[in-house]
């Protein structure tokens, strides 16, 4: 396969390419290649078994779900299903698209849909591991036979194929957050033939380590999407090629190469040198460089996240509302957002982004006010300065928190102006920091946040506050109750009301202080057109083309 070089643009390899075109023969007429860089290799290319963005970046191109997202939004639109509905909130009927074929030539039909859902439902042993089936467990909770008592009974009951093109999914309870969650790549429909042929369900535990014996997820992922899988060289690239018999609009690209570049600056530099055409996860400090470069441009990923300061109420005196209010008034959120988000952030007033239904402007606000903070602390009967242990993560950049260290340092200075005495503590993001936060051992307050998986408030508020968690260390039945009620409610208007009430309750109670919603940036060469970033991070590559040829 040597030297299949399409029309090369990359200035750096241009000279070398001339030599290669000679050996490659007539390949120069082929469609262009799009090279995109993420931060790391995918974990696995069986979407049912992954939960990370880098894996989804690839599976999103190869696989499709029953429903999809309208590009650039969190609104649900038809995918492999053209219509769907439910009379009782428990049995959901999907009308499937006709004439769709998997990459291996087998037909897409209701049997395939049921096969995929039943496959996950029947997972056993190692497959019930959280790192493997995170989204199944998030959305459908449990399995047919739960291996661990920590798992809840399943929301999924079964699937019926009515003829070729009608599939009915049965649930054990009414659910309204189930449908928007189906856009997640984990619920994409894969070729049952390929899954069986390449041993996707084979794996064994050896010395306590899960060992996949099949080759499906490494070399044979087979879906219905606009691109087909070609090869994966760990540390170097995943290569996809155009699916010429795609049912929808056929891609204008001949090839897509996704390569891992973990260092943020290295990614931008590779874009400057032309070694890649586009890159995700651009850091604020690199934005001026890209703006100055006449060959490059920035694209916005619609904001769908929140950064917040946890307050752990199991530690006195933070169980006192006045002290939590003092923290909220003592955090200079406006300056932090202004200084460290490169104009791509807004101050968060509550724990979910304004784009989502249920957000309200009627929550109490806490602008930076050191004098008021000190007064509140005195009112609570404390002597100033009040000691406070403040944790932040190192070695990480999250979309909602591009540089935790700088956020921490600025907050820490503003808290010290407001009557607190800060003790700094840090841990590397991977692996201890999150553990400390979850276990409630990350000090009195800490920096953390969340990026939404799908367009439902339950994915934000429900994740944080539906039950007691050691992270926040409080019991507040009013909040717990309203959030459970809102998640089960099937009437859309009533849901909005409930979530608005919840937001007000939460911001009065102050289990933490939300401080930023960021708009993450992607960067591209100017000639790259048609790329629409998705709020949840799964961007389709099929509409991408090069202006004026590659």
């Amino acid at each position, binding site marked *: 396969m040597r030297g299949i070089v399409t029309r090369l643009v990359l200035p750096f390899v241009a000279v070398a390419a001339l030599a290669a075109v000679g050996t490659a023969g007539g390949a120069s007429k082929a469609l262009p290649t799009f090279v995109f860089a993420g931060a790391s290799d995918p974990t696995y290319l069986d979407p049912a078994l992954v939960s990370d963005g880098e894996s989804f970046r690839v599976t999103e191109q190869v696989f499709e779900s029953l429903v999809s997202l309208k590009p650039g939004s969190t609104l649900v639109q038809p995918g492999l299903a053209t219509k769907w509905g439910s009379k009782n909130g428990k049995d959901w009927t999907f009308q499937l698209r006709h004439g769709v074929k998997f990459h291996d030539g087998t037909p897409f039909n209701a049997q395939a849909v049921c096969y995929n859902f039943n496959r996950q439902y029947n997972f056993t042993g190692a497959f019930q591991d959280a790192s493997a089936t995170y989204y199944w467990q998030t959305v459908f909770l449990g399995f047919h036979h739960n291996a661990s008592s920590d798992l809840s009974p399943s929301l999924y009951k079964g699937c019926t194929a009515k003829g070729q093109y009608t599939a009915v999914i049965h649930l054990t309870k009414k659910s309204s957050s189930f449908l928007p969650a189906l856009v997640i790549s984990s619920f994409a429909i894969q070729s049952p033939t390929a899954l069986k042929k390449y041993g996707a369900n084979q794996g064994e535990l050896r010395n306590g380590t899960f060992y996949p014996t099949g080759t499906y997820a490494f070399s044979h992922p087979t879906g219905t999407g606009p691109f087909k899988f070609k090869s994966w060289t760990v540390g170097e690239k995943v290569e996809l090629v155009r699916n010429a018999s795609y049912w929808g609009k056929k891609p204008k690209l001949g090839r897509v190469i996704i390569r891992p570049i973990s*260092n*943020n*600056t*290295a990614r931008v530099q590779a874009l400057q040198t032309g070694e890649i055409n586009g890159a995700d996860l651009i*850091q604020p*400090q*690199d934005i*001026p*460089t890209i703006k100055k470069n006449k060959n490059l441009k920035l694209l916005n990923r619609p904001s769908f996240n929140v950064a917040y300061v946890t307050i752990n109420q199991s530690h006195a005196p933070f169980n006192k509302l006045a002290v939590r209010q003092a923290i909220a008034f003592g955090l200079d959120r406006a*300056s932090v957002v*202004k*200084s*460290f988000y*490169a104009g791509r952030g807004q101050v968060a007033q509550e724990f979910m982004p304004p784009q989502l239904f249920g957000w309200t402007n009627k929550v109490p606000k806490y602008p930076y006010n050191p004098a008021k903070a000190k007064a509140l602390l005195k009112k609570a009967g404390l002597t100033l300065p009040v000691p406070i242990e403040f944790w*932040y993560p*190192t*070695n*990480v950049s999250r979309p909602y928190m591009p*540089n935790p*260290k*700088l956020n*921490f*340092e*600025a907050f*820490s*200075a503003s808290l010290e102006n407001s009557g607190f005495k800060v003790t*700094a*503590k*840090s*841990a*590397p993001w991977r692996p*201890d920091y999150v553990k400390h936060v979850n276990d409630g051992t990350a000090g009195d307050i800490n920096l953390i946040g969340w990026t939404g998986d799908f367009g439902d408030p339950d994915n934000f508020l429900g994740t944080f506050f539906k039950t007691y968690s050691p992270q926040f260390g409080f019991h507040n039945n009013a909040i717990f109750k309203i959030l459970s009620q809102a998640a089960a409610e099937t009437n859309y208007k009533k849901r909005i009301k409930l979530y608005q009430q919840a937001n007000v309750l939460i911001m009065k109670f102050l289990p933490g202080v939300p401080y930023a919603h960021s708009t993450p940036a992607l960067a591209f060469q100017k000639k790259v057109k048609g790329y629409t970033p998705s709020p949840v991070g799964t961007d389709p590559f099929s509409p991408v083309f090069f202006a004026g040829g590659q």
Partner: protein
Amino acid sequence: MSVAELEAHEVALEAATGGLWRDAFRRLVRNPAAILGFALVAIFIVAAAFAPLLAPYAPKEQNLLLVARGCCPGPSHKHWLGVDQLGRDVYSRILYGARFSLIIGIVSVSIGLSVGLVLGSIAGYVGGFVDTLIMRCMDVMLAIPGLLFAIGIVAILNPGLYQIMIAIGVVNVPIFARLLRGSVLAQRENDFVLAARAVGVRRPVILFSHILPNAISPVIVQGTLAMATAIIDVAGLGFLGLGPQDPATPEWGTMLTDVNDYLQSAPFLAIVPGIAIVISVLGFNLIGDGLREALDPKLRGRVGRFRERKAFWFLGRRAASRA
């Protein structure tokens, strides 16, 4: 003075004092490279000692107004080396940073040296099974790449200033242990030791009053070179995100962590701590090198290859631990 006169003077001086140390010192001060080294280290120590007097600002004093229009304004008459992302004065932070580098260097080398000294001299002097056991343990430690070893120790202890010192100290232990053992072995068969043993001096006394003092010169050399390596190792750990707990700490390695991020938008932020590190490390390396030549004249002219190989073995080891 003519050359002959100079030599005569030298010989007279040597006869008068006779001491190895004075002899070495004289060779050292005639070595321009070593003088340069002393000058660089002197700057470093002065900066560390008098940072509060020399620095125009407090090292943690933020001024977000200065960076409101983007990071980061370059050098000006108010801020000689510009300000960082939080509007702190880089010049002041560099001065205070010298303290941390110096402290980390001294403490970590002391840890490595003292533990290595004890293990190495016991191994060399007692010999037999104890020797084998200790030295095999040292081999095990050496077989793991130095930087990975240090990362591993910090990972267990959680990042922090003391943890970094311990990690770098531990990585240095086998180097000093091997060095000491070699020296002790060489000294053990020397005439004066044999003589002391013959007249019935007890073994610990022989070790501490006869052998160790004579084995000390390579230790001094290695100690100086290890100071240099320690400063670089801290920077490497900082680059990998394992710097001190409080990020406001003006530590050079942590400051240099941003080198990559800001090389394009604010190059001085990256270059200044880098140069500070290079200058101080170079200073210690030059001194260490000069000391080696001065203390071991055999290294200069005719070289026993084996000896040279050993000397460079340590150099290579240092390379691995920082690479």
